[in-house]
């Protein structure tokens, strides 16, 4: 598994300062912490959509960002799949065209991820002709996941993909996520502030508070340390 190393510092216009560093080679790594702790900003930096004032990001031997050496790989070259809380499907395209958006833009990389298999695993076959506005919340999230996978990502970034769903739906989509991890082994960074989700998916947990890493370790040891295993962080 490729090792992701991250070390960035940035000060936002609102005054919030982020200064975080971590490394991980786990299958699923959770960024865990209260809202406003900087989790989402870290994802944007990894994806190349937010450039930190200073820092370095690398996946294996690929250097994506090194501000000192002036390296900043463009987002479309980093090949990361980004799944956000509010799915962000392209409203003017059918489900099929959404799914193939990234597929059609693969740059000749070999990827084991095939369209037919993604459609099968995520059970998207019946949705292909529909438009995002006619999908339920859970369906949208599955399509968004499929769209990311079909771009042939080296890394999946998930920003609270379940937060907008109600409890029974959460459980179903979570099981789809598990299937994806099992099937394709794409390294995944999973942002959440829900302890039970993190426990179910992640091997490794990085805990953030006010823009800094306060702890990192295996999921079991960290979450048992004083945080309610089923409730949210705030609870």
């Amino acid at each position, binding site marked *: 598994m490729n090792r992701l190393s991250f070390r960035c510092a940035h000060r936002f216009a609102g005054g919030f300062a982020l200064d975080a560093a971590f490394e991980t080679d786990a299958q699923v790594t959770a960024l865990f912490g209260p809202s406003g702790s900087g989790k989402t900003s870290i994802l944007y930096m990894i994806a190349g959509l937010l450039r930190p004032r200073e820092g370095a990001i690398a996946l294996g031997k690929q250097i994506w960002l090194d501000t000192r050496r002036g390296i900043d790989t463009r987002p479309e070259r980093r090949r*990361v799949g980004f799944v956000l809380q509010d799915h962000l499907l392209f409203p003017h395209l059918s489900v099929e065209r959404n799914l193939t958006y990234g597929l059609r*833009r693969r740059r000749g990389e070999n990827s084991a991820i095939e369209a037919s298999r993604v459609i099968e695993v995520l059970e998207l076959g019946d949705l292909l002709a529909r438009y995002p506005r006619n999908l339920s919340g859970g369906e949208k999230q599955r399509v968004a996941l499929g769209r990311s996978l079909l*771009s042939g990502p080296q890394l999946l970034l998930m920003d609270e993909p379940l937060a907008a769903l109600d409890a029974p739906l959460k459980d179903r989509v979570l099981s789809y996520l598990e299937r994806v991890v099992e099937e394709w082994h794409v390294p995944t960074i999973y942002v959440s502030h829900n302890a039970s989700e993190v426990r179910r998916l992640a091997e490794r947990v990085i805990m953030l508070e006010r823009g800094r890493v306060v702890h990192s370790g295996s999921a079991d040891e960290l979450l048992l340390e004083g945080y309610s295993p089923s409730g949210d962080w705030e609870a």
Partner: protein
Amino acid sequence: MKLSRAVVIVSTCCLLAAAARADEAPLEGQVLVLSAASTTDAVDALRAAFVKTHPQVTVDAGFAASSALAQQIAAGAPADVYLSANERWADFLDEKGLVARRRDLLSNRLVVVVADDSKLEVKRPADLEQQGIDHVALADPTSVPAGIYARQALAELGLWQDLEAKVVSAADVRQAMQLVVSGAAEAAIVYASDAATSDRVRVAVELDESLSEPIRYPVVLLNRGAERPAAVAFYDYLLSAEAADVFRRYGFLVMADDHPAADAVPVAAAQRWWGLSRDEWLALRLSFQVGLCAVVASLPVAIAAGYVLARWQSRAKWVLELVVNLPLVLPPVVTGLLLLFVFSPKGPIGGALAGTLGIEIVFTWLGAAIASAVVSFPLMVRAIRLAFQAVDPRLEMVARSLGAGRADAFFSVTLPLARSGVLAGCVLAFARSLGEFGATIMVAGNIVGETQTIPLAIFSAGNRPGFEAEVWRLASISIVLAALALVASEWLERRHATREST
């Protein structure tokens, strides 16, 4: 995609229109006459007669105050023949070295006119001082020949001091007379030839010729015209006996001609309310041609500006915002003046275009299109910017992370999602182009069939007595087109708001 198809259709139309113009008028067959407003009807009749015997020639004419025309010619208007209402403005062009040949062609007398149904007793010039007369209309007495002569005559009579406060200054002599017809002024001093064209005014007093310097209409063959056989032929035709008859019919005295003027015939304007005259059709077609080309030309720039304004966070944004919005609040005449400076054959861009591609902008329909494009630009950008702001910027980010480059993401996600707003902006800009007047008249003049769009046609018809029906017909068309455009752009924006809300 619908948008791109529309763009293709529109640009094809423009190309066809441009090609058609180039085909129907080989360069040597086109003559442009700029002529004093007081000669409008006579010159219109003459050019109609001329093209009947020379079917391969097109004669375009522009009418305004001699002073305005002379300055436009000096600024590079591509005119071949100039008919001035006084010698001074012909001298002015002579000094600039633009004159090939000239000859005094016509003379005229000044008359005091009052409305046909006026109850005022005006028997001699001094009667203008009476109480019932609060406004005396003259063409601008500082620059327009008719006004200058009138002022000289009144000064000679010792009346100028007392009457100066009553003087209403009009752009040209036709407008001065129109002020009497409309009741805005009780009396006007105009040429006998103008008075003869209208049955809505009557001549109250004829002013003695000796009161002002002699009123001479020199006809000028400009250097540009001297190189064109068709222009020389038309110049000679104006000096012919046949033309002299026509001029006399419209109330002029023909120089070096002993015969007294024949009885002037009032011109019967087309009074039909239905159907459009040839000139009106030309104005309508030209308005669409100009509007479409203006929209097509400014669309890419407006999309770029709208996108930058919607997405940029930089503090320098206000500079762009200022530049984009300036034409919205600037007097259109000022916009026109700046464009005239830039695009005239002596200006920085106009000179380069004329030198390299042989394209003339000033006083052509291209000039009208550029004026419309600049003036309607802020409206277009505004609509497009709002449309971009309504598109979630994170959609573009997702597209990037899925492998799309910056431009790819813009064209495959952001632009399609903003297409209703972009179309609404185009419709608005098109409607604004149809209404453009101030900048257009500066840059493109007011030439029938070449640059006379609907508003200019309304303006010209409004200055011609007896053309009320034409004015209202064109005005009605304008109102309908403007209303349709507003409804269309509103509908497009609303459609955008309801659809695709997920």
